[in-house]
């Protein structure tokens, strides 16, 4: 059967059958080509997103299948971008799925020559302790004129401007409102 089937699929036979003298078109088409479809049709969901690069705010559609991203492209519905993307936006797929992503928490001891991996919860505990220690040891409740300061200058923060508003809100709330950290700064300054 195998051999016969193979033979019967021989495009030359089709060419003869169809009296196609040049075989430039359909005759020469392979089975794969006939079935060809964009990979986005396999997506089990299409998620609306916004490009993370500049501030134009282009709409993006993220095609997902089995928890993996198939494709990211422009959202035609967006009245700002109308489905278009710049090279950076078009490269978002590589940004979020690339092998450059680090997926472990890394820790570098003082004076160490290399990173080591530590669990996230441990890192959080360590950081919380260090924040407390640094805050407590640098706390300024008053200045030399006796005016209330209620702050620490021993800890600082610098945030990128690709953070969500909700994240920025928590940064300011926790660091400034909760911990009295003044030096909370942002890309917007830079």
């Amino acid at each position: 059967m195998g051999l016969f089937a193979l033979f019967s699929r021989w495009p030359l036979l089709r060419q003869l059958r169809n009296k196609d003298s040049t075989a430039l078109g359909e005759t020469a088409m392979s089975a794969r080509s006939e079935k060809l479809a964009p990979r986005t049709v396999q997506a089990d969901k299409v998620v609306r997103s916004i490009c993370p690069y500049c501030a134009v705010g282009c709409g993006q559609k993220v095609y997902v299948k089995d928890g993996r991203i198939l494709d990211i492209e422009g959202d035609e519905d967006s009245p700002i971008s109308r489905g278009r993307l710049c090279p950076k936006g078009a490269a978002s797929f590589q940004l979020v799925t690339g092998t450059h992503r680090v997926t472990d928490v890394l820790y570098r001891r003082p004076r160490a020559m290399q990173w080591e991996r530590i669990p996230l919860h441990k890192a959080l505990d360590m950081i919380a302790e260090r924040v407390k220690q640094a805050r407590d040891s640098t706390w300024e409740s008053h200045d030399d004129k006796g005016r209330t300061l209620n702050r620490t200058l021993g800890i600082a923060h610098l945030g990128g401007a690709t953070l969500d508003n909700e994240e920025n809100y928590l940064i300011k709330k926790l660091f400034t409102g909760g911990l009295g950290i003044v030096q909370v700064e942002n890309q917007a300054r830079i």
Partner: protein
Amino acid sequence: MPGLGISFGRGGATTFQQDLANADCIVIMGSNMAECHPVGFQWVMEARERGATLIHVDPRFTRTSAMADTYVPLRAGSDIAFLGGLIHYLLENERYFHDYVVHYTNAPAILREDFQDTEDLDGLFSGYDPETGKYGPHTWQYEGMDGVVPAAGHKEVFSEPGAGGHGKVRGKHITEVPRDKTLQHPRCVFQVLKRHYARYTPDVVSRICGVPKELFLKVAKTLCDNSGRERTSAFCYAVGWTQHSVGVQYIRAAAIVQLLLGNIGRPGGGIMALRGHASIQGSSDIPTLYNLLPGYIPMPHAPDAQRLAQYIHNNESASGWWSQFPKYIVSLLKAYYGDAATKKNEWGFHWIPKLTGDHSHMSTVANMADGQVKGYFVMGENPVVGSMNGALQRKGLQKLEWLVVSDLTLTETAEFWRSAPEVLRGDVRPQDIQTEVFFIPAAAHTEKEGTFTNTQRLLQWHHKAVEAPGEARSDLSFLYELGRRLKKLYADSREEKDRAIQALTWDYPTKGPREEPEAEAVLREINGCTVADGKPVSGFTELKDDGSTACGCWLYSGCYADGVNQPARRKPGREQTWVASEWGWAWPANRRLLYNRASADLEGRPWSERKKYVWWDAQRGRWTGEDVPDFIADRPPSYRADKGDRGLDVISGDDPFLMQADGKGWLFAPSGMMDGPLPTHYEPLESPVPNFLYGQQCNPARHEWRRKDNPMHRAWGDPRYPYVVTTYRLTEHHTAGGMSRWLSWLSELQPELFVEVSPELAEEAELENGGWCTVYTARGEIECRVLVTERMRPLRLGGRRVHQVGLPYHWGYTGRVHGDSTNDLIGFTADPNVSIQESKAFTCNLLPGRRSHDRRAAFGWEPWPLPPGVVEVPRDLEGVGPPEQPPQDKE
């Protein structure tokens, strides 16, 4: 963006990108829009296709210039002279929009008698305090005002010494300010403006900017021809304007031009601030900035804000929108501290830390380098490449006890202790760096949900598509977990200092297998709710100052109106009007085009059919139109404030700038600006030429960091560094490269750092296209490739030839493509209003060939001394300038 905030009332782009298509002329200046905002640029192209004239003014001929009808080269750092020249032209030739100027701007307001202009004081305004190096604005006031006119966009200025708040509510007499609607009074703003720019003639513009006179006149004429009742022109700018030691005044200058031409608040007009990051507008609105609380509420300064009442009086205004100030701050404190915030404890106001000076990024890093900072969080940011004097940034990091970096991959900042040039070279050994470093893998935008605020103040929700890999988490999740741990650590404390963290509301609902906090719950808190029943408020007008409402950011109030996630609205653009009000949600109150009351004339009729946008519907007694009217909805055009009116009653029917204390667009800024009420041409700190107009060379109120690790060049004409250099971005990369240099699809398009030089300079410096070149400043040296191109041309300033070179700044020492970091060349200097650095104009030298050393001032290199016979020249008039600081640099 105080430049816009002070002039119009709100620190955000006055228009939206789609509206650029309606413009008849677009001036892009201080921006390379086609390269940095290509998708937004489609609206500019659309305008061009509809017949608009596109003008690009820039030191370099860029991909934007290639699309422009007119390209004007100018010397980097001379934009105020150019814009001042436009103002001069408008006034001299009477091309301003008379009715608009008289009624909608503060042109008729009469100033105090003791105001002195830069024309009188050789580059200085009255009110300068040589002790502190700062201005006090009391002489800049309207006649008859009680103290300082409250400014809208940059309120912490009130707390600055000399701004004269001192616990009194100001602006009570705004309705009594004398005005001369004939604009003839010698002390009216209009005449002051005229005098201030009297010398900014086309010849002087040409002399300072290197712009041929005819070309300047062509721009001025085109702009005027395309403004007025029937036509509107728009300005687009970006960091090419802001990153100067007089950056904010650049924007102020454009604001003046646009107000004079009557282009603000009208379709196809406005000033489009083009911001460079997905949510950079958002990070000033809900700021992670030391001097602001959410919604442009200023952080309290220790001297003026010991008690809530004092703080409120200093910051509220008796008139205009900021009369609502108490509602916003109390609601914010309620959102922060919940039930613990009571009237009795002043809603927890004293838990908010107090400022004593400049705590901005560069000050922080300088302190860090001096060992005064123990811990540092860097989230989604790469300061050793993206910030000035990268080597000094690294030096700072070396002095920390601990550093937390949250990013997608190992950025230069995360790897500063191992891969930095000084480490590879052996100047610094990793064994000697005691900094503990935590790297927290971050979730990408597809792995979390939340809102970005784009360049047109539009909040857009992005949904989560997939789970973050491994231990990568959103910063939201990280902060939530960190906050929980800290609350636990401090739970048992009895110390007063720990009351804030104990009181902080932190009970966000979680979801998913990883129990991550719900971003939507945070958005709800930002929107605000009534405390009693937790129901979301529909907007900031519902906020109260009695503690019955809580709101995380009054400016964003309404984004969760009716319990609906408004930023997540995605009604397709093609199914709406061109304004597309049902896509996402714009602050304030979903208005897309700000100050749109100004699109109608005094009687509330559109200025012209062609430029119809918002108008008064007399039958319904309401403002109506394409957009949400940016005005008190039912206030008729005929309404006039009475003497003694307070609060919003002060806003007359012809006051389109309702955030302002006087409801007017500010040609002249009686307060709010740290460096003068009117934009004035000052040279960059490093310039090839002396200031042609004034004895005062540079911005007298600028910030400087005089340190050995931050050396500066001679003020002008430094023979060691003869060329002007400007830095910029390329389409193919993103800022410090953390999101682009790791991507092969982008890196292959711009693989190497290069310097762009003119053929003339290439000949002079013996550089060859594609060859190597070393660029020097006193801060350090970098090597790069050379691109020889006519896109750079030497300029003629009077009789002298000035060469300019261009350097993109995306490269660093990790990533799929590497290169030296341009920002290692740039020193710490700052604009006094926003502490932004001057990276768009400084000086350098070029030598052919690769660098032989890799010198950095921050790591001990001493720049070469001035050649014999050449002496330092002052940046300031006698007795002027930043005060001498005690040497901070301990090495």
